[in-house]
């Protein structure tokens, strides 16, 4: 048992304790469990949404991407577009959810369009998209803990222990557990990242500017957007696509529902970008590895951060980094578990057996947590490459839910149930087909200029989806007559 391992175990224990603690003084109705009783103010929302946003990606993905491909993924990581979208989109969603007691993302569609079928379709699309996301978080966690413990714990072992821990506190405390553990995680990550992002360039290169100059000399063009491939056109389209898809994820929506007021969501949109500064440090860590640990290849590039850390620090500090990384995977996982079990029980089971009482539903939702955890574990250990393929699809999938949501917030919704369903199905099928055949705009239109070829495919599919949604809606007419008052989003139209 080494020092690193002790540190990781300590923080794991702290997480479980806080997660269990979080339910104190609250009667765990399904509304408390799934969306924290809609009582989270600005501060707790900040930690909760940051908890969803800063995942293993911030930790390994952003630094690894930068290490691998230089500036484009680095700048893509900021995505200020998220927050502008959040400012306009989230308060009206929250408001409708509160007025209509919406508990899950499928609920939202089901109630807006008064169609159980649409609710089920949304439920299926999001479960298919989000399970691979969960699997990737767990795989990341396995790698992080195993690296940080200097191999004394196998990735499998780490994943099993982590899943048991999450299952316990999610079952007991639901959304409350996720929010409180998010606070510890955010503080720890902030401290660790800022320290390393400052330390590496000064220790190895004598400063930040000398580091970038050295990289620029050694690898010309590494610090710029290239003319093709990860070009500016890729950056703009991928940024927009990701931002639109981001809030469609079931666990993000559940997070939004937990807010106390629309104002707390708007304040959050303004404050969250400051938190993005943490990513700057992650990028600098990635850049610092370029010349120091130049030999990482393929998936190992995501370990750039750990290679640098082991090269530079004592085991106990590597343990702290490992703990921060493990929590970066645990918190989003706990949110996903909460959201997915709510959808499965409320939108799918209840559709099948409509006379389930609220108490039975609450019980069932909690019992589903270990079941989903087991299914995820199975895929984590047996999924292989197909999981990665599904994961790459997850954002493109989620963005297909955007048109129906967006139009439903208009004062007069131009979209019919049939339109919404047709758009989602057509969009999803194209996403599956294009991912399986590795299609991109470059393969479909090889003679087009790079500006078009580099566009993100998800965004292109979204356009088709919107066209289908509106087209079918015009044909099926009989608009869903809903006059939603005070819907901010209508001003965008």
């Amino acid at each position, binding site marked *: 048992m080494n020092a690193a391992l002790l540190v990781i175990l300590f923080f794991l224990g702290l997480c479980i304790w806080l997660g269990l603690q979080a339910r104190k003084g609250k009667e765990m109705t399904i509304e408390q469990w799934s969306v924290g009783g809609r009582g989270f103010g600005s501060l707790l929302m900040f930690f909760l949404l940051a908890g969803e946003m800063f995942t293993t990606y911030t930790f390994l993905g952003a630094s690894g991407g930068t290490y691998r491909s230089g500036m484009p993924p680095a*700048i893509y990581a900021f995505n*200020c577009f998220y927050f502008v979208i959040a*400012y306009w989109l989230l308060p009206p969603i929250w408001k409708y959810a509160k007025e209509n007691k919406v508990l899950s993302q499928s609920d939202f569609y089901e109630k807006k369009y008064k169609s159980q079928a649409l609710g089920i379709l949304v439920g299926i699309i999001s479960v298919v998209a989000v399970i691979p996301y969960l699997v990737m978080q767990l795989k990341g966690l396995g790698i992080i803990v195993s690296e940080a413990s200097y191999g004394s714990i196998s990735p499998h072992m780490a994943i099993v222990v982590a899943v048991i821990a999450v299952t316990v506190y999610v079952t007991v405390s639901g959304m409350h557990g996720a929010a409180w553990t998010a606070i510890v995680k955010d503080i720890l990550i902030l401290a660790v990242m800022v320290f390393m992002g400052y330390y590496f360039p000064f220790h190895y290169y004598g400063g*930040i500017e000398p580091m970038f100059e050295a990289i620029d000399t050694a690898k010309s063009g590494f610090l710029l957007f290239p003319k093709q491939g990860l070009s500016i056109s890729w950056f703009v389209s991928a940024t927009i696509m990701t931002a639109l898809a981001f809030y469609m994820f079931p666990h993000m929506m559940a997070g939004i529902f937990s807010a106390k007021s629309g104002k707390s969501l708007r304040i959050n949109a303004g404050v969250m970008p400051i938190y993005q500064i943490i990513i700057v440090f992650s990028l600098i860590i990635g850049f610092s590895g370029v010349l120091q640990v130049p030999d990482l290849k393929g998936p190992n590039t995501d370990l750039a951060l750990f290679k640098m850390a082991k090269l530079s620090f004592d085991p106990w500090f590597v343990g702290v980094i490992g703990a921060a990384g493990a929590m970066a995977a645990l918190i989003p996982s706990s949110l996903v578990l909460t959201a997915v079990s709510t959808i499965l029980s409320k939108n799918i089971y209840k559709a099948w057996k409509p006379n389930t009482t609220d108490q039975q539903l609450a019980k069932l939702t909690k019992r589903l947590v270990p079941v989903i955890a087991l299914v995820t574990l199975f895929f984590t250990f047996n999924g292989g490459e197909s999981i990665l393929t599904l994961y790459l699809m997850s954002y493109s999938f989620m963005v297909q839910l955007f048109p129906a949501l967006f139009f439903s917030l208009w004062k007069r919704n131009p979209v019919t149930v049939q339109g919404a369903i047709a758009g989602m199905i057509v969009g999803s099928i194209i996403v599956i087909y294009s991912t399986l055949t590795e299609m991109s705009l470059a393969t479909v239109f090889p003679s087009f200029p790079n500006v078009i070829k580099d566009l993100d495919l998800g965004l292109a599919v979204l356009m088709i989806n919107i066209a289908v949604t509106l087209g079918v809606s015009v044909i099926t007419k009989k608009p869903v007559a809903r006059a939603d008052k005070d819907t901010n989003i209508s001003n*965008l139209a």
Partner: protein
Amino acid sequence: MKKVFLLTLIPALGSLFVINRVEPYIFGLPFVLFWSICWVGLTSLFLIIANKLDPANKEEEEL
């Protein structure tokens, strides 16, 4: 409401506008990176101001 909308439009467009050059270095950062980090800060600033002016906050209080 229009004013608020325009305020939020500025960071949305600004952050997507890339100035693709390494030099000059500012605070040790390549220009393209520094420029984007600036927009992170500006996004925050614009959204906070927008929220202060947003009539939606008043409407909510009246509810």
